C-alpha cells in the first residue's frame, strides 16, 4: 500500500489526464450527439438516414476499431495529429451515437398528446420541440445520459492504451511493468482514480434529475 502514497503525485497526474480526455471527448460527443438527434427527428428523410446509420454503425463496431481507424488510418491520407486528439475524436464520434440514443429515448417518452396539443395551439415545429417536448424530454433522458457518460469515462482507458500516455491506464502499465510495483495496490489506486471521476459525475446527474422533477 505504501506504493500508493509514494506515487500519489503520479496518480494525481493520471486522474487529470483521464479527466481531460473525458472532458474533450464528452464535449464533442454532446455536440455531435445533439446534432445527430436533431437529424433523427427532422422531417428530412436523408438527415434521418444519416442519424440512423451513424447509430447503427457505432453500436456494432468496437470502439477499439474506431480508434485504430482514426489514429492509424487517417495519417495515411495526410491528416496528421497527436494520438491524444485522434483518441479524443474517436471517443467523441463513438459516444455521440449513444448520446443521440439517450436523447431520442427522452423525446420518445414525452406523451404524444403533448406534441398534438402544442400543434393544435398552432405552434410551429421549432416551438413545439424546444418549448414543449425538450424540457420534458430532458428529465427522462438524464439516467441514460448518465450511463453513457460513465461508460465513456471507462472507455477513455482504451485511449490511454494506444499510446497517449499519462492517463490512469498508462500509469497502471508503467507502474506494474517497469517500476515493478505490486499489482494489487496499483489496481486499487487506478480503480479509486476512476471512482473519483465517476462518483461526482453520477452524483451530478442524480442531482440534476432531482432538480428537473416537476413539482405539482
Amino acid at each position, binding site marked *: 500500500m505504501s506504493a500508493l502514497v509514494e506515487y500519489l503525485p503520479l496518480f494525481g497526474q493520471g486522474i487529470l489526464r483521464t479527466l481531460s480526455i473525458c472532458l474533450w471527448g464528452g464535449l464533442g460527443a454532446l455536440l455531435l450527439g445533439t446534432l445527430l438527434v436533431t437529424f433523427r427527428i427532422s422531417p428530412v428523410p*436523408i438527415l*434521418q438516414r444519416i442519424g440512423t446509420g451513424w447509430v447503427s454503425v457505432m453500436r456494432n*463496431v468496437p470502439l477499439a476499431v*474506431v480508434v485504430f481507424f482514426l489514429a492509424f488510418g487517417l495519417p495515411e491520407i495526410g491528416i496528421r495529429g497527436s494520438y491524444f486528439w485522434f483518441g479524443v475524436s474517436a471517443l467523441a464520434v463513438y459516444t455521440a451515437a449513444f448520446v443521440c440514443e439517450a436523447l431520442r429515448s427522452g423525446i420518445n417518452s414525452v406523451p*404524444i398528446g403533448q406534441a398534438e396539443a402544442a400543434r393544435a395551439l398552432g405552434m410551429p415545429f421549432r416551438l413545439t420541440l424546444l418549448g414543449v417536448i425538450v424540457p420534458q424530454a430532458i428529465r427522462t433522458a438524464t439516467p441514460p445520459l448518465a450511463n453513457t457518460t460513465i461508460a465513456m469515462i471507462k472507455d*477513455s482507458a482504451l485511449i490511454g492504451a494506444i499510446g497517449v500516455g499519462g492517463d490512469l*491506464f498508462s500509469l497502471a502499465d508503467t507502474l506494474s*511493468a517497469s517500476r515493478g510495483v505490486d499489482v494489487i495496490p496499483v489496481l486499487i489506486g487506478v*480503480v479509486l482514480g*476512476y471512482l473519483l471521476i465517476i462518483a461526482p459525475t453520477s452524483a451530478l446527474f442524480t442531482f440534476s434529475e432531482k432538480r428537473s422533477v416537476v413539482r405539482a
Partner: protein
Amino acid sequence: MSEQRALFDELGPRARRRSRAISGGVILLLAGLGALAALKLAENGQFSAQKWSPLFNPLDSQFTTVWTFLGGGLRNTALAGGIAIALSLVIGTVLALARVTSRRWYRWAIVGVMEFFRAVPVVISIFFASRFLPTIGVDLPLLWYLVVGLVLYNSIAIAEIVRAGILAVPRGQTEASAALGLSGAQNLWLVVLPQAFRLMLPSLISQLVIVVKDTALGFIIGFEELLRRGEIAVQTLGNPLQMYLLIGMLFFVVNSLVSALAQRVESGMRQRNGSRQSPPATLRTGFLRVPALRS
C-alpha cells in the same frame, strides 16, 4: 419513425420544397466530402491495387492467406466471446441470486463489491488479469486472461439483467408456489428463474453484442483476435486504412446478425404474447399458459 409523426404535420408544399432543398444541400455536401476524401486518398496513393486487392479481390495471390489469417482471428473472437458470455451468465445468475436472497445486514457487502467492479473499465480488468494472475502462479493462455477480464465486468452487468428479470416475474407466482408448499429454493429454481430467463433473453443477446465488441480489447494483451490479427497483417501489407475499414465491416456484420437475432426473439415473444385472447392486464409477462389471478 412513426412515433415522431406527432412532432410535425404532413408536410405542406412549402415545407416539402424546403425539405427537398435541404436534402439537395446535404447530398451536395456529402458529395463534396466524398470528392475531397477521394482526392486525399488518390493523392496519397491509397487507391493502389496492392492496398485493396489482398483484402477484397479473390484472385489476388495473397487473398487466401490474408483471409485465412483473419478468419482465425474471427474464430478467436467468437471463442473468447462465447466462453465469456457463458461464464458471465453462470456467475451473473449466482450473483443476482445472492443479492436477491440476501438478508439486509449483509446485502450492502454484495452490492458494494458489485459497485466496485462496475467502476473498473474493461480495459483495466483485462490488463490486470494478464498482469496479476501470473504473479500468483496462474499461468494461462492469453485467451483466458481476456475471458477473465471480460467475465469480471460482464457478470456484473448480467447480474443486473437477471435481477431485473427476477423482479419482473409477478409476485403472484411466488405466492402461488408458497401456497402449493414449494420451498424457497424450489420456488426460485422451478417457478421464478425459468420465467425470468425468458423475459431476459433479448437483453442477454444484446449483452452478447457488447461482449463481442469488447473482445477487440484483446489486442492490449496481445491475444490474436480479429483486431490484433489485422494489426499484425498491416505490418506486412502496409494498408491500415483499408484493413481497419474491413475489420470494422466484419464486426458490423457479425454484430448486426446477433442484434437481428435479439430482435427476432423479442418480436417472437411479443407475438406469442399478443396471440393470447384478452391477456389479463396484471400479467405483463404473458408467457404463461395459465391465466393470472386478478387481485
